[in-house]
């Protein structure tokens, strides 16, 4: 069919299930929360919709703004690390021999089949003082100590385990670990479609491997990079589980504050206002992306 007008029934048959789901389970609840953000609490459970902007003004209090900025910074750092780690992985998978590709893709997707909470707890077991990273380092340390003692040079001081948990670094590691597939898959999709002829031409014309990578591969992978960055940055901005479990006393992110408003503080209007400020930022980023990409169509 050329346009949907030629086969309207088929068009609506395909659109309706997904469209209904989107409206009923996404747009309607989201609008309810949006309406709450203009309300006031009256009593322990009731919210009066008064059209007040007091919640937004309270959400922009310097205390909460500093937490917003911290969350933006941590999300940006985690996204950058995810990009740096994800790009080589996507390159490796897209240049792999065809019979290995499905297996490698499966290995990337496999963590999705495990619950997010379990994956985060697994990170705790890896990063804590008596965790696997420190076990490994201690084994290496003891080995070096034994080697030095064997050579008669002297002993190393006692092994001090690294504090990899309960700080901001742990939160970044957790975000990277959980959201890496979101970066690898869009990048892989773009790199897969890359015409290898460009690379051959570039190498033939005398550019080195690194120059080719920087000038040809990365610019051509831009749509994938942008998709991957958006898919990682936006969930990382609102994360609360990872910072709750892996973070330290300073690692309170805006997601944790919003969660507390909806639970302990029982202040749904304020929580709604904060959530929507995050949403407006997200819309801003998406608008910026389409503005920057307007020439690429």
């Amino acid at each position, binding site marked *: 069919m050329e346009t949907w007008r030629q086969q309207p029934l088929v068009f609506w048959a395909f659109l309706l299930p997904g469209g209904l789901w989107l409206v009923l389970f996404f747009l309607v609840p989201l609008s309810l929360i949006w309406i709450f953000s203009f309300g006031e609490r009256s009593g*322990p*459970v009731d919210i009066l919709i008064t059209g007040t902007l007091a919640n937004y003004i309270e959400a922009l209090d310097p*205390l909460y703004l500093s937490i917003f900025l911290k969350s933006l910074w941590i999300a940006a750092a985690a996204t950058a690390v995810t990009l740096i780690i994800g790009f080589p992985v996507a390159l490796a998978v897209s240049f792999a021999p065809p019979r290995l590709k499905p297996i490698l893709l499966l290995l990337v997707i496999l963590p999705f089949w495990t619950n997010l909470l379990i994956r985060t707890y697994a990170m705790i077991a890896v990063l804590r003082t*008596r965790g696997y990273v420190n076990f490994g380092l201690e084994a290496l340390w003891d080995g070096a100590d034994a080697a030095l003692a064997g050579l008669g040079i002297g002993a190393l001081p006692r092994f001090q385990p690294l504090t990899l948990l309960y700080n901001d670094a742990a939160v970044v590691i957790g975000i990277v670990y959980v959201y890496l597939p979101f970066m690898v898959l869009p990048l892989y999709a773009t790199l897969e479609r890359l015409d290898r002829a460009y690379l051959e031409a570039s190498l033939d014309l005398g550019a080195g491997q690194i120059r080719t990578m920087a000038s040809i591969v990365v610019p051509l992978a831009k749509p994938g990079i942008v998709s991957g960055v958006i898919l990682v940055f936006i969930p990382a901005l609102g994360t609360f589980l990872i910072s*709750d479990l892996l973070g*330290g*006393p*300073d690692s309170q992110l805006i997601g944790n504050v919003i969660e507390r408003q909806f*639970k*302990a503080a029982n202040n749904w209007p304020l929580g709604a206002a904060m959530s929507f400020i995050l949403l407006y930022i997200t819309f801003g980023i998406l608008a910026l992306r389409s503005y920057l990409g307007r020439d690429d169509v």
Partner: protein
Amino acid sequence: MPRYRPLRSRKFASSRRRFLEGSLTVATVLPAMNRMSFAQGGQVNVYNWDTYIGETTVEDFTEATGTDVRYDLFASNDELFAKLREGNPGYDVIFPSNDFVERLVAAERLLPLDHGMIPNMSNLDAAFTDPEFDPGRTYSVPYFWGTIGVGYRKSATEGQEPKAWADLFGSDQYSGRMSLLNDSDVIEVALKYLGLSLNSSDPAEIDAAADVLIKAKPHIKAFAPDTGQDLLIAGEVDVCMEWNGDILQVMTEDDDLAYVVPEEGSILWEDTMCIPSGGPNPEAAHAFINYILEAEVHGQIAAEIKYPCPNAAALDFIPEEDRNNPSIYPSKETLERCEVAVYDQAKDDLKEKALTRVLAA
């Protein structure tokens, strides 16, 4: 050409239709029948904290009364309240803490109890029959009570055992080795450390408590949401702020751990059994509560989960070393220094904002 319709297939076709009709009828009637039979067998939906009941209590109840139990778990009072906010999603018995009983009563989510259906209430200790947060026990029945205090590892704090909040907040001897809870309870204990009432609603006092915590923050390893005892037993921290029962449960696994209620006093809490309004089976709910209050049942649960029991008759079924253990049943002087938190939305808002300030500092 004559239409060939074998007799057999026609009979099969109509009996298949009849089978479909029959099964559809049964399918629509059966759920309605289920609801009608609630008064006898039936089912009771219980919503409780994790690891907060005996291993066989639920099966024993089903055996004794023939009522099935659907047992769901929650992790915090906030989760319980959030579930009940927009109406009862189908729970018959819930286990809120004292200040949340007040909150639920203010939100009109609780059914007044029919004391006639809970004769075992006479087993309760006199001290628990008329509390401030629920006069005359109109809405709640005590389940367990306890304190919030400090669990610590004896070998790691040799000679410097924590005895007061001052040891945690006022000095850096446990720097990097201690964890606190991550809800407004920390503001309340900071108020106790400053010698103030933990029910203070004075913004200046709450800010002072927040400042104490901000000053102590460089020495705190983590704010643990109810997992302090796991950190203690794993060796991540040597001193942690936790509920007494949680520490006692890990003390059975590791002899090197101990529990103390700090000198300045602490939070005294009580978990209760309530019936939310709009539940499907209030009769079974009353029966469940009455069963739990039986001396032997309540005592057995207490012996397993090691929380102090408000049931005087159940004390006979609690082993003597538990009854004489000051970590489980604190002395009268200790209890006098502890306070019960009272619900007040304005005060809670101040404490939540102070907590956000502490965590952001």
